[in-house]
C-alpha cells in the first residue's frame, strides 16, 4: 500500500512542543527554538522504524551535551550526574514518543519498532534506502537538536507511480 500523505514539519513541531512541555521544559523557560536545517550536528542518534502501510524512520539527533541535558531533565538530575545508560535510555524514549505520535498520523496498519540508539560521538546513522522528507531542526539550551522523518525509497516509488 502506498501513502501519499505523511506528517509535515508542522506536525513534528506540534509533537515536540508537547514533549518539551511534558518532560524537557515543563516550566516553559527553555523551548526548542527552530532554526534552518543544520547539517552534521549529530553526535547522538535515536531512531524508531515504522513498517506496515508506511515505511520509514523517525530520527532524533542532537549534540552530546543536548542529550545529557535531556537525560538530566527527564530524570530530574544534574547533567553531570547522568550516566551513559541514562542518556541512551532517554534518547530512545524521545524517539519512541515522537515516533509513536507520528504513527498515529499515518494510515492504520503501521507498527513502530523499539528504539535503537547510537551514543558514540563521531558515529553516523545512515538510512541508505530512505530519504529525509521533513526535519524540525532547532536549538535547545543553545545546543543543536534535530527531529526528522525518513521515508523508504520503495514507498516513494509507489507514490510516484500511483
Amino acid at each position, binding site marked *: 500500500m502506498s501513502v501519499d500523505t505523511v506528517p509535515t514539519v508542522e506536525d513534528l513541531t506540534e509533537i515536540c512542543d*508537547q*514533549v518539551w*512541555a*511534558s*518532560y524537557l521544559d*515543563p516550566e516553559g523557560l527553555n523551548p526548542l527554538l527552530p532554526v534552518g536545517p543544520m547539517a552534521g550536528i549529530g553526535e547522538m542518534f535515536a531512531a524508531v522504524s515504522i513498517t506496515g502501510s508506511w515505511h520509514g524512520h523517525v530520527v532524533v539527533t542532537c549534540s552530546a551535551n543536548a542529550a545529557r541535558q535531556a*537525560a538530566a531533565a*527527564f*530524570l*530530574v538530575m544534574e547533567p553531570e550526574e547522568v550516566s551513559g*545508560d*541514562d542518556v541512551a*535510555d*532517554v534518547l*530512545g*524514549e524521545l524517539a*519512541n*514518543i515522537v*515516533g*509513536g*505520535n507520528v*504513527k*498515529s498520523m499515518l494510515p*492504520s496498519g503501521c507498527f*513502530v519498532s*523499539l528504539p535503537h540508539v547510537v551514543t558514540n560521538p563521531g558515529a553516523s546513522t545512515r538510512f541508505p534506502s530512505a530519504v529525509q522528507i521533513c526535519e524540525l531542526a532547532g536549538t535547545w539550551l543553545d545546543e543543536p537538536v534535530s527531529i526528522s522523518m525518513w521515508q523508504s525509497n520503495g514507498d516513494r516509488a509507489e507514490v510516484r507511480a500511483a
Partner: protein
Amino acid sequence: MLAIVVDDSRAMRLILRRIVGQLGFDVIEAGDGKEALDALAGLDDLPQLALVDWNMPNMNGLEFVSAVRADARLREMTLVMVTTESEQSQIVRALAAGAHEYVIKPFTAGAMVEKLALLGLVPSGVTI
C-alpha cells in the same frame, strides 16, 4: 497503596514513580510484561494499580493486560496503559483486553493525576 510501573524505559519508569509516589503509592518497577508477571507472582500483597507501556520487548503491554485479566489472582488490579499508541483502534484493543484507562505519551503529571482520579484511586481535585 502499591503500584507497579511496567515500562522498558528507566527514565519513564522514574517519571511515573515520581508522580504516583507523590500521590502516596509505594512503587515497584518492571522493564517488560514478563518481568512484571514474575514480580507479581512473588508478592503476597498485590498492587492496586499497574501503569503499563505498550511497546516493550519480551512481553508487550497488551499481552500483559490480557495475562492479568486471565489470572483470577491478579484481575482486581486497575490497569492503565501509558503509551504512544494513540490510534483509536489501538485504544479500543487495549480497553477490550481489559485496560481500565489509557494515557497517551507525552503526558503531564496533571493529566495522569486526573486519570487516576477518574478511576477513584486518588481524590478528585488533588494536584502535585
